[in-house]
């Protein structure tokens, strides 16, 4: 089946938009200007101004000299693209595939859509009617190729429909600009007297390529349908937002809870249908006096369980100050993720629902104490005790290396080693006694030394010689000596942990 394309051109996009927002400007000449090289230059002028001889590219001062009544406003950068983008999204009602054609056009892939409006004629009329109703002047064209549709839109008869196979006939009488060429090439063509497409369409291709480059042939082929042309369709942003308007302002916590429950049920129903779950959500409460109170939650895993999400919000409801009352609740899910059933096992053996329960429990805990209160550790490939662990970033992350079990490690590790006084024979015998927190421990049994070097690429300092020692009461400690013995200074001893 052949493709059918519609191109829409808004010749007066910006000025039409201005009139729509300020209807008073309808019968007044006005223009937009932007600074270029330090001068204010007209970028767009409405039809009244244009008929008085004001054209884009003119300096604002000159234009004002010609037409003192001219109203000039600033042309905000990006305004046109924003406008055309919103029209592109609006046009999705006509076809699922729409693309923008910067700066002021749209391309619609109307293949297989027009019969829903009766005929191609009715299809175009419907679009024109709606856009005109909004106050925008438009020109439309329809053809089998984007190139031809574009050409007839910009240079052909008003709203022409080119039937299949008639592309070249439609193009013949149009000027070369209709082929979307670079200004340099069109200028060259005009200088050579090639003022219509018909004057060069039958020339040998090699001659055209040599004279005007490959782009002319490409554009010609695209217009005639010999070459495919791709468009980048617009995907409208899915907004995960629910609103609840209250007739009477809500002032009580139970009222807020009821509103929140309703919003959550709506959003969760939508999420469930699309197999998505939310990771962060914000409840915005618009107060009567115009202030906005908001509370936010986050989850450890994507969830569409309204009951669970409500529990997370519930912890924070008392932070909302309703004051005179809340008239509008807006629930927004800023971060939404796909829920994939395959990833729903935690450590491989548990079933899906029960895992969710653990994730929900952790959500509640992190909702109350902050996410950094939850830790899970994985082994890291370091001998240095403080670095032998790393934090797991997710609930399901698996260790990449084995837990080491070959050396004895204390069940309790002091976060910072504490200095102890030690009596120890030189050079590397275990200590005979040590004093910790004022108490003298006589050592009966000892293991060691186990030397752990610093990782010089991470930090500098002395190595540690660790000893596992047991005193006469049977308590076991992890002591270490920082560095070696030397002539000048005795090395310092520290306690670093307790064995069971």
């Amino acid at each position, binding site marked *: 089946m052949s493709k059918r394309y519609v191109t829409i051109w808004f010749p007066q996009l910006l000025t039409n938009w201005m009139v729509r927002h300020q209807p008073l400007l309808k019968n007044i000449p006005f223009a937009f200007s932007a600074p270029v090289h330090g001068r204010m230059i007209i970028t767009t002028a409405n039809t009244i101004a244009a008929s008085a001889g004001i054209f884009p590219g003119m300096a604002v001062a000159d234009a004002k000299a010609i037409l003192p009544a001219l109203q000039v406003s600033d042309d905000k950068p990006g305004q046109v693209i924003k406008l055309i983008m919103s029209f592109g999204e609006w046009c999705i009602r006509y076809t699922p595939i729409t693309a923008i054609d910067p700066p002021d056009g749209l391309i619609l892939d109307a293949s297989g859509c027009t019969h829903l409006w009766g005929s191609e004629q009715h299809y175009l009329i419907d679009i024109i009617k709606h856009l005109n109703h909004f106050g925008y002047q438009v020109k439309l064209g329809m053809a089998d190729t984007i190139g031809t549709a574009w050409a007839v839109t910009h240079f052909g008869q008003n709203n022409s429909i080119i039937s299949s196979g008639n592309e070249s006939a439609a193009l013949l009488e149009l000027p070369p600009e209709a082929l979307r060429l670079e200004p340099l090439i069109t200028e060259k063509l005009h200088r050579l007297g090639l003022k219509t497409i018909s004057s060069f369409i039958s020339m040998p291709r090699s001659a055209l390529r040599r004279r005007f480059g490959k782009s002319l042939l490409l554009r010609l082929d695209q217009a005639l349908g010999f070459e495919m042309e791709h468009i980048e369709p617009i995907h409208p942003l899915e907004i995960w937002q629910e609103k609840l308007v209250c007739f009477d302002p809500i002032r009580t916590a139970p009222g807020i809870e009821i509103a929140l429950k309703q919003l959550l049920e709506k959003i969760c129903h939508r999420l469930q249908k699309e197999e998505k779950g939310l990771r962060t959500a914000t409840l915005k409460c618009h107060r009567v006096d115009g202030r906005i109170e908001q509370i936010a939650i986050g989850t450890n895993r994507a969830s569409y369980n309204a009951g669970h999400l409500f529990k997370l919000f519930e912890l924070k409801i008392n932070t909302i100050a309703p004051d005179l009352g809340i008239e509008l609740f807006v629930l927004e899910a800023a971060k939404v993720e796909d829920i994939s059933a395959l990833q729903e096992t935690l450590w491989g053996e548990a079933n899906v629902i*029960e895992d969710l329960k653990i994730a929900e429990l952790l959500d509640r*805990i992190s909702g109350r*104490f902050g996410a950094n209160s939850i830790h899970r550790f994985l082994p890291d490939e370091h001998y240095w005790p403080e670095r032998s662990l790393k934090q797991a970033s997710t609930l399901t992350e698996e260790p990449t290396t084995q837990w080491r079990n070959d050396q004895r490690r204390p069940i*309790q590790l002091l976060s910072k080693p504490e200095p102890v006084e030690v009596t120890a024979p030189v050079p590397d015998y275990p200590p005979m006694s040590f004093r910790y927190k004022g108490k003298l421990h006589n050592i009966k049994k000892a293991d060691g030394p186990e030397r752990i070097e610093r990782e010089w690429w991470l930090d500098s300092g002395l190595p540690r010689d660790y000893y*596992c020692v*047991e005193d006469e009461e049977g308590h076991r400690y992890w002591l270490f000596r920082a560095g070696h013995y030397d002539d000048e200074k005795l090395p310092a001893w520290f306690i670093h942990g307790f064995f069971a």
Partner: protein
Amino acid sequence: MLSNKSNIIDQLQKAILPLQGVKSLSSANRLDIGFRPIELAFPNNSFPTGAMHEFISEASESAAATNAFVAALLSRIINKSGICLWVSSSRTLFPAAMEAFGITPHRLIFIDVKKDTEALWAMEEALKCERLAAVVGEIRNINLTASRKLQLAVEKSKVTGFILRHHPPNLNPVAAVSRWKINSLPSKPEDGLPGVGFTRWNVELLKVRNGKPGSWQIEWAGNQFQQVIPADVIEMPLQLVRQTG
């Protein structure tokens, strides 16, 4: 005659237990902690899961011994099913050492909070989650009311809870099926070798509801408990305990 009497007493005790709310467990879901004398000290001759256990420790050294003993018990509970939460307001536990007591350290999730009251809240929430195998809470100060809440939570969810009270301000009673005290003992190196031997504890079961308190000297030898029979103290041999218990 004597055996007749003890038989009658046995039967009476068994009749009383269900009246007191202690359910007899089928052998299938009975937990084997790997040390029969301790199991015999509890009603129905089995270590109660789905209940609260309280551990008291005074010095840092005995806190370390308690942590390790609890870890060893946990390894038995986790092996059957799942994941364990460790709630603490002042954690010094070194996860890398847990491997030696039979626990894969990444199966533990640590909740580090600032205050005892926060730890209690987290622990109560965790104990309500049936999916967890066990919850350990290092809570220094806990009153009877708070512990009752925890007890109610475990009765419903069947999660086993451990309260570790390190250096408690007072030894107030709490709602738990048992109260323990673990201290380390001098180790005995194998066959006169130098160095430090296997971890040894003096395990005291101070209180046990409907059971018999006791005290044992246990060695953690290669991933299992082993009773230590001190050479200089003559105690009732292990076999005898098993027969009469």
